[in-house]
């Protein structure tokens, strides 16, 4: 009996096929099989959000999705956030606002923030903080992260 399953997905707008064991999480496959190491393994149990990806338009922890569950679905990772040759406003504001120090939580925060701005380009500060409650940062104290998200939202809002 074969132990591996063939999974067909679209990752960052590209068709991707891979083999995996059912027990492998999407996080593990992204990092170990596909070389997409932007999503980070920190807690591996759904608490920290460092592995955040967008699955069929929904923000999720990749550590709590089995890779086999991604079959037929679209995945957006941090590697797919930036348009072609430039930075996404979120990435640019994270840099401008110094919203990162060690950076390990940052891909998760950027993906999570993008998922918020995809549905609401004018969140209040409270809405930003609530939405990002599942993303933990040990370094920054969150304030600059929140400012960066609000600044990016302002830039992205059509005037």
């Amino acid at each position, binding site marked *: 009996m074969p132990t591996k399953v063939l999974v067909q997905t679209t990752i960052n707008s590209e068709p991707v096929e891979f083999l995996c064991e059912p*027990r492998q999480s999407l996080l593990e496959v992204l990092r170990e099989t596909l070389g997409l190491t932007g999503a980070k393994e920190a807690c591996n*149990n*759904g608490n920290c959000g460092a592995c955040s990806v967008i699955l069929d338009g929904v*923000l999720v922890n990749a550590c*709590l*999705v089995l890779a086999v569950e991604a079959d037929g679905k679209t995945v957006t990772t941090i590697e797919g956030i930036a348009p072609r040759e430039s930075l996404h406003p979120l990435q640019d504001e994270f840099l401008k606002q110094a919203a990162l120090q060690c950076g390990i939580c940052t891909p998760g925060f950027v993906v999570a923030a993008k998922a918020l701005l995809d549905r609401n380009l004018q969140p209040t500060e409270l809405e930003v903080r609530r939405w990002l*409650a*599942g*993303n933990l940062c040990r370094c920054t104290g969150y304030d600059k992260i929140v400012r960066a998200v609000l600044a990016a939202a302002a830039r992205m809002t059509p005037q």
Partner: protein
Amino acid sequence: MQAFDYIKAASEAEVIALLSKDGEQVRILSGGTDLLVQLREGRRTAKLLVDIKAVPEANELAYDPIEGLRVGAAVPCCRMCDDSTIASLYPGLVEAVALIGGTQIQGRASLGGNLCNASPAADSIPALIVHRATCIIAGPGGRREVAVEDFCAAPGQTILQPGEFLVSLRLAPPAPRFGAAYLRFIPRNEMDIAVAGAGASVTLNESRTTFVSACIALAAVAPTPLFVPEAGETLTGRTVSAEAIAEAARIAQAASRPISDMRGTAAQRKHLSAVLTRRALEKAIERARA
């Protein structure tokens, strides 16, 4: 994590057939936000995961003014919270569902899974109890219905028999002058597990001055979510007043039997039982009067 097989079931019959094969070692996968962590930590084992996210009735989220609300066991929290009709008709349930984890968890975790995980501190279960929800269970013997307050048997254990799985939850349409609320106490602002929680629902008379009925259930103060019928019954026919509410809160508190653990002491939880019951009742009354 140990190796397991994975099958995405297409039908209820397929799920039952698969569950009947190897009892404990076949587990239902819905959102996976509890199960995958438990498998990884060795707290549960499995040889086969049966994904029910493609079983039609388990994924149905529908409201009908006569039939009420049908929430398939695999419907993720985010679908419920994003449904403005359901959020406006059942605010006391949706606010409980919205407390489960954070945004990423909400994208996968299901109400059915929260119930089947049977944590004493589950936030959705007291809310389901005070909405008098019914569990629709399917198994080799056919279907059966269980009142949600009877579903959890012990911490982490349900009354599901071998071969059975939870298909869907049913709630009646909200009656006129019905209101419900759920509140919990956590040390932080988000994400925590409840130290104590209280769900309350009331139905008021036409002048909105008297309780026709009331229902109270508590989280994290007993081995299972705690339905306290006597707390609600004490309000039947009484004038809505601070004294009546305080009496119900006292009865709920007396029924609570919390333990001390890393999240709080038994004494604190006893205290919170009364405070949260009072506040949940006040919020439910406000909604019933709106």
